[in-house]
């Protein structure tokens, strides 16, 4: 399968968690950007707009809620956001920031790849 042009931005403060997500995605042929918190995520987005954002919610410096608010007020890009959370009510977390999808930690690799496949827009 040809890799889509748009990259997936992984926002996750736990370095091991972030690394395994990156490995899973690159192994599946995606181009991946990464950030350790909301502040870095905004820097990444300023350099290149990703096609999809996988967003951890509980992070230091700037958490997922704050990032979503900042991101949406600065950009009108319509970039889909998938919330990745350890909270049991993942849908509720997603609804809080009007995200496009949610993924519960711990997740199966197939679930992660399915979420990306579903929400990453095909390049035109």
């Amino acid at each position, binding site marked *: 399968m040809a890799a889509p042009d748009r990259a997936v931005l992984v926002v996750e403060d736990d370095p091991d968690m972030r690394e*395994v*997500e990156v490995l899973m995605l690159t192994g599946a042929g995606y181009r991946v950007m990464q950030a350790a918190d909301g502040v870095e995520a905004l820097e990444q987005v300023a350099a290149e707009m990703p096609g999809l954002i996988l967003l951890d919610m*509980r992070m230091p410096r700037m958490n997922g809620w704050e990032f979503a608010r900042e991101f949406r007020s600065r950009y009108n890009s319509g970039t889909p956001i998938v919330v990745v959370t*350890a909270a049991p009510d993942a*849908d509720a977390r997603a609804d809080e920031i009007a995200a496009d999808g949610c993924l519960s*930690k*711990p997740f199966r690799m197939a679930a992660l790849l399915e979420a990306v496949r579903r929400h990453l827009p095909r390049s035109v």
Partner: protein
Amino acid sequence: MIAPVAYHWAHCAPGPAKIDVRGVGTASDEQDNLLQRFPGIGDTVLRTFFTGSREAILVAGPFGRYVASNPAASELLGYTAEELRLLGPADVVLGEPAATDPIGIWRNDLELRRKDGVPVPVEARVTALQGPLAVLSVMTAHDISDRRNVERENAALLERERAALAAAEAASRAGAEFLAAAAHELKTPVAVIKAYVELLASQETRERSTVEARALTALNSQCDRLTDLVENLLDVLRLSLGRLYLERHHISLGALAAEVVARMQGLTTKHRLLLDVADPAEVDADPRRLDQVLVNLLGNAIKFSPQGGEIRVTVAAWDGAAVVSVEDAGVGIPATRQAQIFDQFYKAHPGAAVVYEGLGVGLFLSRALVQEHGGTIWFTSVEGEGSTFSFSVPLAGAEAANGGAG
């Protein structure tokens, strides 16, 4: 020196009016009559009132000294009548000078100084009397120390309650924050382990040894087991903090049961899971939580029929409620252990050789979840023959009518 002058007592009316004391003031015709027939009786009545009244009465003259006082005033202040004639408002009344007191209104913020120096809080009223030579100031007062004490105690009590409420709210917020942090901290390492295990398992680059293959499978399933245990623990914590919330959707309990049965069947080859859905049983419920209850009941049925056999799940609508039953032909529950079966941390078969012991909170949580939906949970069991666990949830639309819990 004040020349003794005969004062005629007059009716003290409220308000700032100066009152002519040359006549005898009356309040009614009847009183008029009485006084005409018995001249002097007004005097006696008023004198009796003056001496017998429990209100302290102090009459201050134009030279700033008390010209008259009653026994109650002596009792209140600790001075004899003779001592009081040498004193005046300036010596006794604490606070604003008596001269500027508004006439005729009750004040409850005055203090009078007793002979022993102790200030006593009083509620008092001051009236002016126009005498033949001068204006007199009449004060009636009573001790409100008791009232003051009660007010002070109430204020202190209110303050303590406010502080307690604030502390409770802070603790509640701390509890909620702890819950969110605990969920995150406990599940992230498990998520990392599981993710790497899955990543390794997905790599088909080389032949994997038997040990490696088994290791990956075992690691993965242990991660799932740990996740379940952590979730159970967090649920117990949420329940104890009153933070177990439902996210209701309109769902078919029959369809949910079918999903769970199919999933659970995959966990056992020794058991046959049979499903009988008599009605679709539409309910307004949290599918994740009812899934949890069904998994708990089916898991127990499997766990406690180690010989295998059939496990029957039935779903039916009955009397405004959806009823789900899980019936097994396993070891059953001893009669002596049945009463506490839904208690927290209670195990009906402690030390039994069962796979996946668990925390002993499954039924405790199931009951809480069913009750949160406005339903009930019950069971029948005979040791050696098996158990049937059932729960009911009000049908969609029926809950309001039944007055079920929100």
